[in-house]
């Protein structure tokens, strides 16, 4: 589903990525950790087609992510440190708009709001910055994209919301969704692979999902 080869990026004379290679199959998941948050974000933004790589190739769903940006974006949903402007809209209106552009039913928007613990009728203007982070995560969930890119997306979540979202994400993986999660520390039980980004390169170690969360996810899939 995702194949990255020889990816490099330099920003303001600083090497963020120095030849990143990564391959993820359908339904696969990778947790990207490491001390350099900026470099992780750069990798995630390149995967989200928001930033152009200096060199290397990225193929997502069989499409070249540089040559075919707009078709690739239909496969992706990115939740990261991007701004959401209120525009006098409510949470449900915004999420339904996102779901609508992705040809998803309104129910997907309502489920996303409930998962991250946002009041549906709350004004975006009124919710604090932390909750806007939750709204970004909710947009990714509402879009039901084939590839979910989550960059520090769990920061604003309380424990119950974090558990609900993790269970939903594991269930999504079982439906074939690809998950790439960038966090300071890997979220336990969420991803089946763990890679660390150090000095612009990815170092890989495998992680198994704990059985309890995997079982809960299977229950969700059956439901």
């Amino acid at each position, binding site marked *: 589903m995702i194949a990255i080869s020889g990816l490099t990026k*330099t*920003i*303001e*004379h600083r090497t963020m990525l120095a030849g990143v290679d990564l391959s993820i199959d359908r339904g696969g998941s990778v947790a990207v950790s490491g001390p350099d948050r900026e470099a992780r974000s750069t990798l995630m*933004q390149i995967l*989200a*087609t*928001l*930033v*152009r790589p200096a060199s290397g190739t990225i193929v997502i769903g069989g499409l070249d992510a540089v040559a075919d*940006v*707009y078709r690739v*974006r*239909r496969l*992706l*949903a*990115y939740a990261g440190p*991007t*701004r959401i*402007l209120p*525009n*006098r*809209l409510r949470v449900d*209106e915004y999420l339904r*708009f*996102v779901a*609508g*552009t*992705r040809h998803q039913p309104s129910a997907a928007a309502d489920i996303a709001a409930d998962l991250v613990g946002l009041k549906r009728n709350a004004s975006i203007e009124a919710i604090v910055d932390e909750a806007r982070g939750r709204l970004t995560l909710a*947009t990714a969930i509402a*879009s039901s*994209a084939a590839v979910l890119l989550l960059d520090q997306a769990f920061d604003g979540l309380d424990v119950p919301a974090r558990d609900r979202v993790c269970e939903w994400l594991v269930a999504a993986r079982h439906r074939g969704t690809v998950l790439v999660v960038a966090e300071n520390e890997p979220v336990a039980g969420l991803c089946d692979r763990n890679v660390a980004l150090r000095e612009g390169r990815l170092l890989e170690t495998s992680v198994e999902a704990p059985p309890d969360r995997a079982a809960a996810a299977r229950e969700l899939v059956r439901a």
Partner: protein
Amino acid sequence: MRAVVLREALVAARRPALVGAAIVSAGLLALFPIAWGVRGIPTLGGISLYDQQFRLEWVLALALLPWTAARVIANERGDDFVGLSALTAIQPSRLLLARLLTATIALVAVIAGALPVVISAQQMSAVAASRLVADQLALLTFALPAAIITVWWMQLTTDRLLGWLGAAATTLIVVTLGRLSVATMNQAAIALAAISVCAAAILLARADVWWRYLSEPKE
């Protein structure tokens, strides 16, 4: 595309500027005969109340339409606009097209809001209905260039105030140039609409390149 148009329309409808501009426009036009009577301003060479009010309508359109468009369109510009394209998986050109359509409709609503007042002036001045229709259609056509100029400016500047001032100045300049080039204001409005459609086509053609990626600091 439908979802984007609906969202832009919802954003525009929620802005107090839309209703405010419609009230100011209709209110000032309604005050005109109250202030000057059925003959209008005596020093304006004996032209009818309707003609005098139509001039005022143009002045109000020049002053209010760029401001209204700048206030009612959604806030995403620059990197926020790129983010919106990624979030919705919709090309920037289509997002802009929706924005242009919504802005034009909002401006048409502002002009149309004053129609009852204009019709009463036409009745008081015994002007032919065909003239009223032609004048108002020309003015409604002017909503298109006003919307396109403002959306252009709002996309190119990060500051809303600067965008509005730029749009207002550009609108004034192109209307003045248009009026100097052709015989009547109605012809000028139609010529400006045709030119602005070309300008919109250029903006839409380049949008997918200009707003493809987030801006990066210069090396």
